[in-house]
């Protein structure tokens, strides 16, 4: 079967093709999600599928995994044409997909989740035997999980391993990973990559869907780039390409990784946080004496590994969490432990970390979502009534100004892609003309083009003399946008730096206070 393979241009060129997709066309109403796409996967390689949000990556893989059927095109598995009518068919053919959102039963154990839906244990469930099997499988692929643990007790990274084990247990030879790193902490990403390498060495083949260039360059052997449903590069060896080239293939133009930031003298202090103490959801201390200030016309970054109090700090400042000590002053006025509406009235904008759970109401229209912060004020408010003509007019203006791509402003926002949703939120928050903006992970999960747009908008706000507190886990983003950076570790500020190198910030992020770093440096120059 393998003889019909075209000779591959690059490494592993002679490994047999396990998957061939030719001329795949998949239409959704009004959208051509896949336009004649070719894709192939060799045995024992990691092939990345790169593209912006909505470029058609997941669609293509859902076709391969039997979830969607293509309108045209052929799929060959190990050289044989196949036609899947359900994910079950795909699994029988050795293709398993790990979705972004896990499909596990939280109250059941790892083993029970893995066995779920299988035919083999019919009546008698000899759990000890299966526990052993699962443990052995985990050991073989470097996926260590306790088979007896209940899924709800596991971290996100461990749950992902369970999903992988589930597929391996079903005998998957081809694993499709849909943006596996989106939910993982940096350390967990390392662990995942190690696992993927083991699996490849065991003869599995992996398709890695991502829009993160760094990861693709790190882990993948070859890469296929999709843009607007078309493949702009098919099976390019990562050794022969560069981040810049991939970025260009992805968005169709050169991406500015360096932002254009003009020097600016900051104005008066807008946000002042003094010795703030607060607990997290579990009642444990999350903030332990945080003090910082943000001035008008500057972007202040807050760096830190996830879970060191960033979320709680943003919540206390925006009035969504009570603090147990310290104060938050906005333009000299105390706003901590006040209703969120007070901060909003005082001119605070907030780009929340969670776009769908916090930032928008999914079933309400674009208009309704855009007026969330100013429906209390004329001209949209007319006394007790709402003037929907004004609201629609307002929404249409923002739609044009911020390039929100929707058929009309009556569309419910659940129909919007991640980047579009973030534009809705940014449009709404910026339109209030804020004195202070709290931006939490404003580019998480966005593609390169959208990230650039968000960065440009934040810089424009800085030029318009807004004070901006940027909380992010992307160090590059912080370094290129911020005028100053605070580093937070276990609810304490480790120090404040300007023009610092990544090394220094890295040390602070892992718990070394700035003074200590400076002291050590002065001792050993």
């Amino acid at each position, binding site marked *: 079967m393998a003889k019909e393979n075209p000779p591959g241009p690059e490494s592993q060129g002679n490994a047999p093709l396990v998957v061939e997709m030719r001329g795949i066309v998949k239409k*959704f*109403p*009004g*959208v051509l999600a896949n336009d004649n796409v070719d894709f192939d996967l060799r045995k024992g390689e990691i092939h990345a599928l790169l593209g912006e949000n909505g470029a058609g990556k997941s669609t293509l893989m859902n076709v391969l995994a039997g979830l*969607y*059927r*293509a309108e*045209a*095109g*052929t*799929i060959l598995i190990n050289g044989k044409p196949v*036609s899947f*009518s359900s994910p079950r068919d795909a699994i029988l053919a050795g293709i398993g997909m790990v979705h972004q959102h896990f499909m596990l039963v939280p109250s059941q154990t790892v083993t029970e989740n893995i066995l779920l839906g299988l035919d083999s244990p019919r009546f008698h469930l000899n759990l000890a035997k299966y526990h052993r099997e699962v443990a052995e499988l985990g050991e073989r692929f470097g996926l260590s999980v306790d088979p007896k643990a209940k899924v709800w007790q596991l971290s996100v990274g461990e749950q992902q391993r369970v999903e992988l084990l589930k597929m391996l247990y079903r005998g998957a030879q081809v694993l499709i990973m849909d943006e596996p790193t989106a939910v993982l902490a940096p350390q967990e990403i390392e662990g995942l990559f190690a696992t993927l390498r083991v699996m490849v060495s065991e003869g599995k083949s992996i398709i890695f869907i991502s829009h993160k260039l760094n990861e693709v360059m790190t882990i993948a052997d070859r890469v296929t780039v999709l843009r607007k449903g078309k493949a702009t590069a098919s099976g390019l060896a990562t050794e022969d390409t560069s981040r810049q080239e991939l970025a260009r293939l992805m968005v169709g133009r050169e991406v500015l990784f360096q932002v254009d930031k003009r020097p600016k003298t900051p104005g008066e202090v807008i946000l002042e946080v003094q010795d703030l103490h607060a607990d997290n959801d579990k009642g444990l201390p999350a903030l332990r004496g945080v003090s910082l200030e943000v001035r008008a016309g500057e972007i202040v970054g807050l760096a830190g590994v996830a879970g060191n109090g960033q979320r709680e700090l943003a919540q206390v400042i*925006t*009035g*969504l969490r009570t603090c147990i000590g310290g104060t938050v002053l906005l333009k000299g006025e105390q706003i901590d432990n006040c*209703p*969120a*509406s*007070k*901060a*909003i*009235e005082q001119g605070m904008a*907030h780009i*929340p970390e969670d776009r769908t*759970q*916090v*930032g*928008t*109401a*999914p*079933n*309400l229209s674009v208009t*309704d979502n855009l*007026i*969330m*912060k100013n*429906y*209390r004020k004329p001209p949209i*408010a007319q006394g*007790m*009534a*709402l003037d*929907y003509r004004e609201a629609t007019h307002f929404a249409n203006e923002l739609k044009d100004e911020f390039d929100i791509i929707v*058929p009309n402003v009556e*569309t*419910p926002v659940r*129909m919007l892609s991640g980047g579009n949703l973030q534009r809705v939120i940014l449009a709404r928050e910026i339109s209030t003309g804020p004195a202070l903006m709290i931006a939490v992970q404003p580019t998480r999960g966005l593609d390169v083009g959208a990230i650039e747009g968000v960065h440009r908008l934040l810089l424009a706000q800085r030029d318009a003399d807004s004070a901006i507190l940027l909380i992010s886990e992307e160090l590059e983003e912080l370094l290129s946008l911020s005028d100053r950076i605070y580093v937070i570790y276990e609810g304490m500020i480790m120090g404040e730096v300007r023009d610092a190198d990544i090394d220094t910030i890295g040390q602070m992020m892992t718990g070394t206070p700035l003074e200590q770093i400076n002291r050590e440096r002065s001792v050993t120059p």
Partner: protein
Amino acid sequence: MTEQSVSSPGRAWRFPLTVRFEPRLVEPPRWFPLLVSFGAIFFALVLGGGVIALAGGDPVRSYAHIARASFGSLGVFSDTLVKATPLILVGLACALAFRMRLWNIGAEGQFFLGAFGASAVVLIPLLPENTSPWIFIPVMILAGILAGAIWGFIPGFLKARYNVNEIITTLMMNYIAVAWNNFFIYAVWTEGGFQMSHMFPRNAWLPRLADYAKEVPVFRGLTVHLGLVLGIIAAFVVWFILYRSRWGYEIRLIGDNPTAARYAGLNITRNTILVMMVSGALAGLAGMSEITGVVHRLQGSISPGYGFTGIIIAWLSKLNPFAVIPVSVLFGALILAGREIQPSGVPKMIQGIILVSLIASDFLLRYRLRIVLRGREV
């Protein structure tokens, strides 16, 4: 004799057509939900016809009879509307609360309290018997609304302040409301030992069309009363609140995503209490309208479960205040004409089939159905 399909060699023969559901990625056009709803009702009637046939009846004649008995003449149509009147108000009460995802299952109790409040005006008495209807009726309306609102306030306050599950409290308060009414009709306002109060004076009755038969002879015997007008006004008011007012925007926002509402600075506590009160007030108004428009005295069995039917009506109307009106009329007709066929049994079954079909038809709004020939898809 059988041809093996090329695409699936070795497999047993399978039906050549297959039905596939695909999630809709764009909103269907505006007329589509309406079409689907009518289709579902039609489907349910066909199915119900089967039930009637199985029970030994003639479906066509039965349906014709139902139609005649509920829409056949001005007189019976008026009776249908009388049945629909409390359903409209109670349906609106539920629709408003459900919009904020407050599960007010207590419309029945609020209905009883509204009836009690209106009766109290006559029976305490708060107003002398010979008061002009121009004062009597507005005061009774206010009393009914107030009593219902109080009955809604209690679970609303408990929910807002102490996060007590409103489903449980509203449900339990239904029983208290019935017992409360019973106490008064058995002990306080009993008429000669019967479990009912004395008849209200004529000037405390909601005006009926029949009252104007002298001026307009067509109105003779028509029992439609002012409550219907109150119901239609209420539908407009609820629509305006929900879609054209700041408060309604807040209700919809909280209902869709309370976290986002909190983030936008909304006061959820206050809105929870207010919505429960307005919902209770609407159900109370239903009780008032029934007691002063139909029953004309306070007695035990004033509701064949209107409060619970209101829940169904709110769902079937997809929480749309205007849709509540036709759906209530449909249910009014089924309640009225169903009795002509069989006191319980078959008409209830048809009601159930309509309900299940309509709710199931929602699936078609979210998914597209495609019938494909096997082996030809790719």
